[in-house]
């Protein structure tokens, strides 16, 4: 399956990916409106990490033997049979944070704005290219099929 990968050599921590992620998951999908009207309720689904000049954006890896799917007691965290992506069902989630405990990449986040639930990258579902990848001005995020990525 196609996944998002980062190339830390070219990530400059501009955070445009984070902004794009917020907007893509907002109600209006319009950047200014989303920020001005919905902002406190928006949670990005990726994390930008920085250590000195090194930086990258990391989001759900959609692992093959996904520890979050194993740990989820509600069945909210599921692997799609067709897509291979790990999806999360907000309605089922009870916010027990077993997934947060299990994700070795630390990319499952808490969304406590409305209801206490986990939230994570959904690969922007039906879009050709996820918003973060599309927004990266330096191609530090790529969306592609990579052989051998499934092995751990």
């Amino acid at each position, binding site marked *: 399956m196609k*996944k998002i*990968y*980062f*190339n830390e050599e070219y990530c400059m921590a501009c955070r445009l990916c984070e902004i794009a992620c917020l907007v893509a998951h907002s109600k209006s999908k319009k950047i200014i409106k989303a920020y001005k009207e919905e902002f406190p309720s928006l949670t990005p689904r990726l*994390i930008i*990490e*920085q*250590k000195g000049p*090194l*930086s*990258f954006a*990391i989001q759900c*890896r959609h*692992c093959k*033997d996904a*520890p979050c*799917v*194993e*740990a989820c*007691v*509600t*069945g909210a965290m599921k692997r799609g049979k067709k897509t291979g992506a790990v999806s999360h069902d907000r*309605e*089922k989630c*009870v*916010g*027990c*944070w*077993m*997934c*947060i*405990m*299990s*994700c*070795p*990449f*630390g*990319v*499952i*986040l*808490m969304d406590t704005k409305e209801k*206490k639930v986990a939230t994570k990258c959904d690969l922007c579902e039906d879009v050709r290219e996820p918003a973060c990848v599309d927004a990266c001005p330096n191609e530090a995020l*790529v969306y592609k099929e*990579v*052989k*051998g*990525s*499934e*092995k*751990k």
Partner: protein
Amino acid sequence: MKSSGKIVIIGSSVAAISAIETIREKNKNLPITVITKDRDLFYSRPLISYTNFTDEQRYYRDKNFFRKNNVDLIFGEATIVKNNSVVLENKKNVKFSELLIAVGGKPITLDIKGIDGKNVFTLTTKDDADNIKKFCKNKKHAVVIGCGMIGIKAAEFLKGLGLNVSIVELMDKPFASVLDEKSGKIIADKIKKHAKLILNNSVSDIKENQCILKNGEKIPSDIVICAIGVVPNLDIAKKSQIKTNRGIVVDEFMRTSRKNVYAAGDCTEALDILSGKKIPIPIWPVAYRQGAVAGSNIAGIAKEYAGGFVRNSVDVFGLPLITLGLSNDKSGEEIVFSDEKSKVYKKAIVKDGKIIGAIFVGDIARAGIFTGMIKDGIDVSNFKNEIFSENFGYIYVPKEFRSKEVTPIEI
């Protein structure tokens, strides 16, 4: 090892479900039969204490899971394995070519006066929860014995039903085996805002309307929930001459001592990577993984269980708590972050350069990175003082240890 005959699974919780999913991923046609005691098949056990949930919300997999996966169901209790058959309570024989025992754990019972009274319950199945709900109508006071995972969930459950709750704990703090003093105190303080917490004490006599404690104190109680914990359910294994210790003994392929019989989940004892010993690790993710490993092997694709370690995440009346591994170990170096004002406490125990345990109270963000570091045995010596800094993240994990999921070779 390819199975030709009929696969039988005893149990229908997470280990069984993950085994079924794994088998079906690899083989659509192998006949599978599940023998289960549960009348309502689809609920997730950890969710039984959520009072504001509909049954629908409690489903772990969708309602048609067994039908969709072409699984036959037999409702009843399996009592013994004889030759290549499982004998049910009603003496019926169910033949198998491979058997998976996934019977889970059973609640620990205490030898207390009045423990067999009508007002005493355990809370591990949906039936338990339904019975408690019925019993609690017009009741006022409840006592929960044990302040661990189930104790807290039981207390929240009873609070949700509108009762006043007292929790009696034998040890000096909640979650005594996994918390240290400081985190224990934060959690205790939180519990006290919602329930009466009685530490260093135990119930010695359960009466209809009150409990008498070891120190003679009397507390009102219309209902008592015994929530000490669970032990592996060894009933069928023992009767069937399957080797058991504290749990059913299994090898890395989840095979028991009996040919063609596998076991997975809370009923087993499996490799703990931190101690190197085989112990029961009765937690959901381990059950899931073991079920998947057993399922794969049953379907004829060899897969090893790499071991696990104790970890848990629980929400204590709104305060998140995660403990990982040997979180109460005193022999390692302790790295602590604590902010009393925001009730945040984090601690990691480092031994020989590696994290062997951790506690997160209040702020559990990205705790999974620690789970990963414990699992992969990553040497943190170079950055151990930064693990609780604001910027800490996966970026600290040395590149050579990073998962291929993150940096595939081609990039």
